[in-house]
């Protein structure tokens, strides 16, 4: 492919925020018809690079050339005009607008008198969605009514719609469970000679898609090479600047078979889930495998006391409880680590420390007056559990990376002396190092007799961490797989709704 000239050639791209160098003299090029993986931990500069390429951020120095012409966009429109389009990690969709309206933002087609003809673009959307294999979405639904996964698909489709020369995919599979959909789309795209820059944390995807990968660390390019001939270990070493093996912690399960289950549901039904029955014992890690929008998030919310039950019952330690609110759930020792970190996880305006201590702040207070020293002790103890550097405790939490924010939320959950953690995809958009820590936290928690209810979009995690895994399909549990039988393939096929004969399923 090097015979063809590069589509994009970036030389010495440089960007600094205040005193921080986000991108340091980064140079690389992309060739027609190739998928180039862009790897790096959070804060390595990936997002900054994406934003520069898509015209949101203007670099301080360096030049970018596309198809031989200098490229210096000042907004998305200009970028698109040069054939660069992006599917963003933090989805750029408007919940209150219909799918159709979203697909054609910011400049939907207008008729002679400058009016947007909804029917026309909805019809067009209809065909587009078919063409791109997105099913079960009416063009007129509000994006807000769609599941996260569907929203991500729409985001991707929108980026592809304008047939770009250069396509940027930033964590495109963060919320998508069946990735083959995306992979096939990408393959079909490459035929057209488009170059794709593929940002992800998931190595297997890189291996599956890319010939070449670029690795950033602390804003510098540390590796730019063809993938064959590089071991995973090398890649991680380059990303983290040290050797990390993405080994799942080996653990012998120590489930307490005798004590009554920490959490048990009987024919539980609520908005978005029906007839759920399972029990979860001390020391057990129970996984949930499901494609997006199969009711898992509703189930989690129901267990956390965020949804009213329509039917069925929940037992904690053998005693039936009514979880009217998350508050009562917490009192019962059930703590949720929510799906939407930004809106439901963190308190944007508070310091990291305050974010951790908030649920038990009264313990740090005498006569309701907070004793800073005591609070610090508590917080630092919790931070240690999740290996969160004390340096990050004082600043505002939104100055932290996704990974560290997730650690903060875990620390908070552990503080509220939880008996049972409900983890909803805790490793989404989190770098390898943090993932590793999260695994350890989960394991330790279980070893000390806690119970974990664990949903992940990464089947490997379920396979390696869980003692059992339930599979949800169409808002209910369709199968239960024992540890010995756990394989990604089995989980996926079950989650996709295929009936599996005998082996494993109960």
């Amino acid at each position, binding site marked *: 492919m090097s015979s063809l000239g590069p589509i994009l050639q970036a030389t010495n791209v440089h960007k600094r925020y205040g005193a921080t160098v986000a991108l340091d003299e980064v140079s690389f090029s992309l060739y027609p018809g190739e998928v180039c993986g862009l790897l790096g931990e959070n804060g390595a500069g990936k997002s900054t690079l994406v934003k520069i390429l898509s015209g949101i951020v203007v670099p301080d120095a360096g030049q970018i050339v596309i198809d031989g012409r200098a490229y210096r966009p000042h907004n998305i429109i200009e970028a698109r005009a040069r054939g660069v389009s992006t599917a963003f990690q933090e*989805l750029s969709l408007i*919940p209150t607008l219909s799918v159709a309206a979203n697909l054609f933002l910011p*400049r939907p087609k207008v008729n002679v008198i400058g009016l947007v003809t909804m029917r026309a673009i909805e019809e067009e959307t209809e065909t587009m969605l078919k063409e791109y294999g997105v099913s079960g979405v009416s063009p007129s639904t509000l994006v807000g009514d769609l599941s996260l996964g569907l929203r991500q698909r729409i985001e991707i489709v929108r980026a592809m719609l304008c047939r770009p020369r250069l396509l940027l995919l930033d964590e495109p599979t963060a919320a998508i469970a069946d990735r083959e959909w995306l992979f096939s789309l990408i393959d079909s795209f490459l035929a057209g000679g488009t170059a794709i820059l593929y940002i992800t944390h998931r190595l297997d995807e890189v291996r599956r898609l890319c010939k070449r990968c670029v690795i950033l660390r602390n804003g510098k390019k540390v590796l730019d090479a063809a993938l064959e001939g590089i071991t995973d270990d090398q890649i991680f070493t380059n990303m983290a600047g040290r050797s990390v093996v993405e080994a799942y912690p080996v653990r012998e399960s120590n489930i307490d078979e005798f004590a009554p289950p920490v959490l048990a549901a009987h024919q539980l039904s609520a908005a978005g889930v029906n007839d759920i029955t399972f029990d979860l014992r001390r020391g057990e890690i129970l996984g949930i495998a499901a494609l997006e929008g199969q009711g898992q998030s509703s189930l989690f919310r129901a267990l956390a006391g965020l949804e009213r039950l329509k039917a069925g019952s929940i037992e904690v330690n053998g005693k039936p409880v009514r979880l009217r609110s998350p508050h009562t759930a917490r009192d019962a020792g059930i703590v949720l680590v929510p799906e939407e970190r930004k809106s439901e996880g963190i308190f944007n305006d508070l310091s990291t420390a305050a974010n951790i201590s908030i649920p038990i702040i009264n313990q740090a207070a005498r006569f309701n007056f907070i004793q800073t020293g005591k609070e610090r002790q508590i917080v630092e103890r919790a931070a240690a559990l999740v290996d969160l550097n004390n340096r990050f405790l004082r600043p505002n939490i939104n100055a932290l990376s996704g990974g560290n924010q997730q650690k903060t939320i875990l620390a908070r959950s552990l503080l509220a002396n939880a008996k049972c953690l409900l983890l909803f995809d805790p490793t989404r958009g989190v770098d390898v190092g943090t993932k590793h820590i999260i695994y350890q936290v989960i394991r330790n928690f279980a070893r000390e007799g806690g119970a974990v209810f664990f949903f992940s979009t990464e089947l490997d995690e379920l396979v390696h961490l869980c003692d059992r895994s339930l599979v949800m399909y169409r808002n209910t549990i369709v199968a239960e797989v024992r540890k010995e039988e756990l394989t990604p393939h089995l989980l996926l096929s079950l989650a996709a709704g295929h009936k599996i004969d005998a082996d494993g399923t109960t």
Partner: protein
Amino acid sequence: MNQTSRDRRRPLPSSLFAALLYVVMFVIYSINAPSAITLLGITDLLNNTIVLAIAAAGLTLVILAAELDLSSVGVIAVSNVIVATVSTKIPAGPFVSLLLVCSVGLLVGLINGWLVAFLGLQSLACTLGTMIMCQGVALVILDAPGGEVAAFIMNRLTDTVFGIIPVAGVILAAVVSGWLLLRRTRLGIAIYAVGTDAVASHLTGINVKRTKLGVFGLAGIAYGLAGYMLSAQTGTGDPRVSNSFLLYVFAAVAIGGTSLGGGRGGVIGGVIGAGILTVMQKLLFAVGVADFYTNIFSGLIMVVAILFGNLSAILTLRQRVPLIRRPNREYSVH
């Protein structure tokens, strides 16, 4: 943004509930005051409604874009005194003064927009500033009630066309249809987008700043128009438009079912809201509520109206995907 969709699971437009409430109130009113359904009665009612309605229409735009605007009172005062001082003095006064007030409104609106969008000031605070300034300007132009409004404005705009349709009704219809068009333009869609999620809008390539600027500008024009219509009502200039009016403009928008958090609702709701607040006075009078009881009932009706509007949300929230709620809006003033 219900109009972009014919989807069944969508919450019914809460403006619809407001409309329902309006009908109920009007019926009770007309039962108690037969003159209500005479042409004169209707004309009077519309004339009383229109100022608030147009102002509310303007404010709705701003609120849809998740901003606040207190400047309405100031702009109305300024344009009122302008009309009162100019419309009789110069040739073609009515039309010239109309242009004048619209451009003054536009100017103030653009200043607001600039302060909010480009300097990043909090809209509530800086529009409070512009409001005070505008009231000052009004006092400078006219230091006491007086001046006169061209007879043409006074008579034509408060009258009926062909003796059957109240002019105020025609103007309201114009405002509403103007909105129906705007709603379908790129700007219209951008307003909802920005109001819902400014960051995402920016990522999709919508020019957030310019959208907000435009919104404030349009709102300013609306306030100017409202002031013009007020002059038509009063036939005189009065530099003092009370702040109670300001609060009622907001009440009208909220009662019309526009979420004060932005992104949800529409101008029609605001107009209906204004209608409700106006017919409320008439209704209370007609059923014999007088003296201080009026205040008590007004307060009550406002809350009931809101709860009534909330029905739509309540009815539909049940089957909506829970994750999509935008809870951090729940208590926001916006």
